[in-house]
């Protein structure tokens, strides 16, 4: 062979080599159901199960609910249709929700309510909204606001009860309890997910432990355990398999981690050593046990140092700290719905003197409703642990899959959750995972939850369900 022949042969050889060069990767194995049967899946739960987001239930959130994402993957492995009580496109904004309107000069987000294309059909006897009914069959039984201790309350689905449950409760049986409804649906279900119990600590927490309303108390652990057992028993009575989720630690959500760090920084810069707040719900004056002094250095910062948590709802008021005034008290009183004439009595009951500087004097303390303090957090933590022990035991004794949302969200809060190079964290707005209410996930957050549940199901039942791609689901909608 001479060199010119070699030279001519070389490009041809290279082309030949290349033709066989492109590597091929096997397609993922087809989805299989393992020992589970996804033909009729029902989802039991609260706002998280319904797809609630941005402080409301609306069509986009419903379509991105984690049960809907699960059902879509189940379909690849024998799953059937999954009906949700969707709002119509004309009423796509459902209950209304918060949108991000922009940022103020300091970079703080400005939210505004969406009030068009709602699904409100009238008012309840107590003045709350009633939503457009959905009378067709549903697989998604997620009811925003429902607590474990509500599941056997007759009338919870009546016009005087929870409007989200009301719209799917048969008009012929308005007193049907959530438990009875679940029992009726479970009779034909082959697979279920159950994520109940978040509201049994959440209402207390988001109201800063300052409310005595029934929705804001902490459910006793024995009550919780009893009702959880009943729900799971009825779900598994016909041999259905399923997945149970635990209750996350509320102190890691942006609702409690957004305002405090900024406040701590500004107070430290101003040389303020500490604050006076109220704690709990009890009335009483400046020298009573409802006053509590906290050091500024005890406000939890972004790094997790410090204990006291300020609510997202305190954001408009923390700037008033150090100045005399009663605006924050007027706001709280208005929230109570009582006649305006009672406001002076309200101030007297708490011994508040609005001529004193807010938040730094015992006469005008910063209200308990905006602070989840260390004592209140301990109460919540004890209850959460009790609930989760019950839920984990149920999963173990019934042989069900367990999505330990408590462990998972602690990990997310500590180190974030990247998805294919996109940084997602538990930060408000910029973190992508939590919606504008600071509590409920965004579609991206729900997609990640769906993946974690799929992981638990695959592990328990030997199924091979594929994951969804979280990056195809949005974070917070920017203006």
């Amino acid at each position, binding site marked *: 062979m001479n060199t010119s022949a070699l030279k001519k042969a070389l490009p041809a050889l*290279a082309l030949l080599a*290349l033709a066989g*060069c492109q590597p091929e990767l096997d397609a*993922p194995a087809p989805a299989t159901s393992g020992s589970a049967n996804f033909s009729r899946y029902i989802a039991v739960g609260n706002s998280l199960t319904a797809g609630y987001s941005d402080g409301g239930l609306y069509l986009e959130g419903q379509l991105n609910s984690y049960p809907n994402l699960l059902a879509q993957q189940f379909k690849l492995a024998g799953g059937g249709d999954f009906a949700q009580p969707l709002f119509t496109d004309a009423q796509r904004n459902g209950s209304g929700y918060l949108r991000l309107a922009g940022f103020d000069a300091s970079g703080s987000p400005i939210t505004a309510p969406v009030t068009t294309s709602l699904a409100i059909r009238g008012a309840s006897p107590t003045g709350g909204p009633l939503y457009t009914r959905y009378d067709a069959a549903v697989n998604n039984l997620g009811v925003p606001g429902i607590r474990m201790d509500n599941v056997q309350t007759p009338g919870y689905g009546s016009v005087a009860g929870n409007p989200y449950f009301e719209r799917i409760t048969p008009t012929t049986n308005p007193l049907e309890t959530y438990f009875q409804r679940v029992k009726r649906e479970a009779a034909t279900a082959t697979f279920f997910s159950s994520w109940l119990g978040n509201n049994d600590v959440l209402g207390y927490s988001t109201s800063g432990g300052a409310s005595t309303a029934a929705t804001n108390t902490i459910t006793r652990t024995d009550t919780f355990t009893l009702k959880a057992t009943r729900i799971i028993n009825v779900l598994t009575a016909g041999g259905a398999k399923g997945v149970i989720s635990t209750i996350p630690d509320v102190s890691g959500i942006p609702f409690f981690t957004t305002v405090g760090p900024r406040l701590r920084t500004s107070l430290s810069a101003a040389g303020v050593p500490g604050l006076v707040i109220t704690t709990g719900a009890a009335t009483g004056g400046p020298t009573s046990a409802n006053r509590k002094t906290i050091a500024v250095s005890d406000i939890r910062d972004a790094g997790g140092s410090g204990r006291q948590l300020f609510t997202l709802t305190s954001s408009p008021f923390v700037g008033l700290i150090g100045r005399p005034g009663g605006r924050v008290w007027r706001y709280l009183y208005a929230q109570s719905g009582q006649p305006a004439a009672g406001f002076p009595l309200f101030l007297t009951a708490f011994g508040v003197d609005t001529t004193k500087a807010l938040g730094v004097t015992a006469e005008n303390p910063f209200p308990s409703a905006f602070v989840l303090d260390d004592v209140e957090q301990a109460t919540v933590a004890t209850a959460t642990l009790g609930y989760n022990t019950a839920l984990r035991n149920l999963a173990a004794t019934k042989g069900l899959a367990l999505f330990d949302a408590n462990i998972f969200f602690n990990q997310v809060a500590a180190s*974030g959750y990247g998805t294919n*190079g996109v940084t997602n964290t538990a930060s408000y707005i910029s973190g992508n995972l939590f919606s504008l209410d600071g509590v409920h996930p965004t579609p991206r957050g729900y997609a990640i939850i769906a*993946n974690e549940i799929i992981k638990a199901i695959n592990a328990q039942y030997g199924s091979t369900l594929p994951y969804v*791609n979280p*990056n195809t689901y949005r974070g917070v909608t*920017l203006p």
Partner: protein
Amino acid sequence: MNLKSLLLVGGALLSGTAASAGGFQVTLAGQKNNGMGGVGVGLSLDQAAMFYNPGALAMVRERGVQIGGNVTLARQSFRGQFGSDERTLRNSIVTPFNLYAGFGPAEGKWRLGIAVYTPFGSKLQYASGWEGRYSLTDIDLKSVFVQPTVSYAITDQLSIGGGPVILAYGAVNLQKDISIGNYPDGHVELDGKAEHKVGFNAGVFFKPSDKLSLGVSYRSHIDAHVKDGTVTITNTPTALASSFAATKFDVTLPLPATTSIGVGVMPNDKLTLGFDVNFVQWSRYKTLDFTFDQNLGTSNKSTSKRYYQDALTFRLGGQYKLTDGLTVRAGGSYDNSPVKDGYVTPETPDADRVSGTLGATYSFGKFGVDLSAQYVSIKKRTQTQNELLNNGTSLDRVAGTYKTNIVIPGIGFNYNF
């Protein structure tokens, strides 16, 4: 290209020094060596000894000039853990080259030389819309090293040599998309030139008999540093301008030291066999840290964990002189990846790799033509979201499976005097 270089690059920037040759599978510094699995530390084949073992240069009989070039053709497939479509690279080629000139008295004990080589140039262009686009869409690294060399034969059997290794030219271009909520993806491009840096390359060569030779060489590390590179951000919403304000970046990429030993065996005057082991001190590469003049995202700094481990490469090759004019070669190598499980990045989609090579030289008088071809198979490698989460590396890389093959034809011309 070369992926190898890629690899080297370790992550994202300029990678390596020639040294990399060791840890980096695709060693392309000499066309004859390329056909023999990349061996050369224990041999004195030609002027490319300046790269493989400067100590052997004094034992190279001929003085001469040689130039070589290669074409790196990488083909990759990727399948994400989230999203099942198979992705392939937009095909691109890179053309590493090398140039050597050696001088000295015909019968003298010393030799002088100058070497120019491009051990790290890497270019990967991922498919539009691929799952890892928020980590990387494109990377293009170029580098040119210049190495003046002196070698001295202390005895007929023992010679030493060395010289400074100058990073004469280095350029990096990195691009990725930015995910911005409900907006279309933004895009960021980092483009910069590396500062000139100097390291060294030194070696000892010992040839106790006509049938056996031994070599040891060491190439020092170089910290490639890009200062005031340009940041270009496009398609981001004006409302978020303060989050995408960066215009300049600084970054340093440590290029590791390589220690090599080689053995040459010449059973007869037609057959030469070589065996090399390269030890690359990759563990120096712990993090890749960018500093920006203003925010890019929520901070003006970014840190990406690498935590590479030291790696060994084993090479075996030989040549046989068929006729006076024609010499044929074959060889292979096995590279241990310095990248640990859960730390694979799109810039360096690395895994253990196996290479096979062929080569030939036809010479007529003082001229010669070298041909070489390498086939590199980078093993299939999967990393899961769980591994990324457990390592704290989920924020900047992709869960999925990579498989890469590379074909590298090359040609060289040499003239001896």
